[in-house]
């Protein structure tokens, strides 16, 4: 076994997902401490090879590249099979995978193939007395757990999106590209991707650095209009509480909270959200929280950094106007 660290670099339509570079950055820090190389595993269809240079710039020493028609859409079987074989051939002691939807499938599928442990959605990875300890939220962040994979190798971790900082790319860095052959023929794969319906515009909640979120206070689907306008100006994602989603005012994709998405943006602007415990669990790790609510007793003010006690329909347009004068 080596001290090398594998990182799966996720891409969609030959563009790398930001969380991939966050994982490469996390791997780089660990490799600098334990020795060994950071090995980026880059799988996809035609054109994916262009990302190898980016992987080096973000901190990889080597790239294992597989470009094959069977890999052009993410499917867990061929991806996990190929990664498992690469692990067996190169013997890294650690594998990092971004905790995106695809990564959350790939990590466990790899771990089961290798009969090893997988720790999901880590927010911190650090050596303590020689043991690599992972910190991760449980119960939607109401509690934290520290875990380890003491015996089995490789140890597999998925890294939570935005929990690790993205390194500054260094265009001068270079490394070795090793080509892999895809190991599973198309007719052996049990799934076929027959289409993709892209979400209509907008910034995705998972990687937004600003989220403008609305709850019961928006009072209807059209109540999201001023929030959307503020979000557009700030290049922010639109979030929602469960109450608003359950009322049918906004699709589930926007829900923040224990039964929605857990988010951790730089700025979370909660508009007309009272702050039920299950909502707070999903956004409490945001760097700065602003609460706008008519009710001064709303629990959201307990976790907010700044509060405005007023009607969101007055405050949100005024905030947009005030920021418009100052931004750009």
């Amino acid at each position, binding site marked *: 076994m080596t001290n090398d660290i594998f990182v799966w670099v996720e891409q969609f339509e030959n563009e790398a997902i930001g969380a991939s570079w966050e994982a490469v950055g996390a791997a780089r820090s660990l490799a600098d401490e334990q020795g060994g190389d950071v090995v980026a595993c880059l799988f996809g269809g035609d054109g994916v090879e262009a990302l190898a240079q980016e992987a080096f710039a973000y901190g990889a020493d080597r790239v294992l590249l597989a470009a094959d028609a069977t890999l052009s859409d*993410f499917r867990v079987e061929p991806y996990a099979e190929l990664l498992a074989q690469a692990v067996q051939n190169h013997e890294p002691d650690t594998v990092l995978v971004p905790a995106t939807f695809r990564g959350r499938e790939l990590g466990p599928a790899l*771990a089961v193939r290798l009969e090893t442990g*997988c720790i999901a959605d880590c927010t911190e990875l650090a050596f303590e007395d020689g043991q690599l300890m992972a910190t991760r939220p449980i119960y939607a962040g109401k509690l934290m*757990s520290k*875990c380890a994979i003491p015996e089995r190798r490789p140890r597999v971790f998925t890294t939570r999106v935005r929990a690790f900082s993205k390194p500054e790319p260094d265009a001068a860095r270079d490394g070795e590209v090793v080509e892999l052959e895809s190991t599973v023929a198309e007719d052996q794969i049990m*799934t076929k991707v027959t289409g993709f319906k892209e979400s209509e515009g907008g910034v995705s909640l998972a990687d937004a650095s600003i989220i403008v979120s609305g709850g019961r206070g928006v009072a209807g689907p059209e109540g999201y209009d001023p929030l959307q306008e503020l979000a557009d100006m700030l290049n922010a994602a639109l979030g929602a509480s469960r109450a608003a989603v359950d009322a049918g005012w906004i699709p*589930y994709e926007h829900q923040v909270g224990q039964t929605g998405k857990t988010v951790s943006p730089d700025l979370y602007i909660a508009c007309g959200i009272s702050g039920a415990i299950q909502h707070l669990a999903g956004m409490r790790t945001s760097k700065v929280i602003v609460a706008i609510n008519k009710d001064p007793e709303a629990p959201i003010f307990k976790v907010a950094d700044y509060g405005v006690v007023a009607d969101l329909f007055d405050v949100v347009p005024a905030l947009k106007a005030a*920021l418009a004068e100052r931004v750009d």
Partner: protein
Amino acid sequence: MHIVVCTKYTPDSEAKMSVDEAGNVSWGDSPLIINPWDEYAVEEALLLRDEYGGTVTAISMGPEHALEALKHAVAMGADEAIRIWDDVCAGSDTLATSYVLARAIETIGDVDLILCGKSAIDAETWQTGVALATRLNVPSLMYTINIAALDPDAATITVERLLEQGRQIVEASLPAVVGTTKGINEPRYTSFMGIRKAAKMDYPLWTLEDIGADPDRVGTSGSGVRWPTVFEPPVREGEAEIIEAETVEEKAKILAEKLLAEKVI
């Protein structure tokens, strides 16, 4: 069709969680419920049974508390419910849990479709569904928001999976493991009759021996992950700074300045 639904119990999502000095996790007086994501799996199983005929069997690996999840599934309309447990199962991670569930499903035999929630709201590992599919060597269809087509005779299924950039449409062979997400259906409320049926129901307990599972592959010895420490996260300090001014416009201006000073815009 024979549909198996994997369920687990969790503390209610409104529960205030705490940890005592010995590291024991408590959910206070909050009730134990079926994992909310699993309710979508149960509902989808019932809808498919109504359309294609067949049986819905709910299973859960867990101590007696696991009956809460199974009872809920039966109250919703599941035909059968099996609990799987042995004391050595304690401390199982997803590697071990998926092994036990796979052995149980192989023991049931002749299963056409396996449904589960896309994750559970307690440990939130998101792993068991895909790990189970890997064990059974069947397709894994996590984050399914719509079953667009299903043909029991041809043994095929088409689903829409909710990913970050949109919906991926996937065709797969059956049996498969489908992980359900919110939006796929509206889980029904349990009826009085359903709750009565669940209370009278017989819940067989399968041990490792019943499912032919190797005790070395479950519990701590069968797990890769150890979780020695659970702690409460630091609370966010203090109360919000409430922005005070005469008019909303002035408040908005002050807030804008604060946010620019924080360098978050």
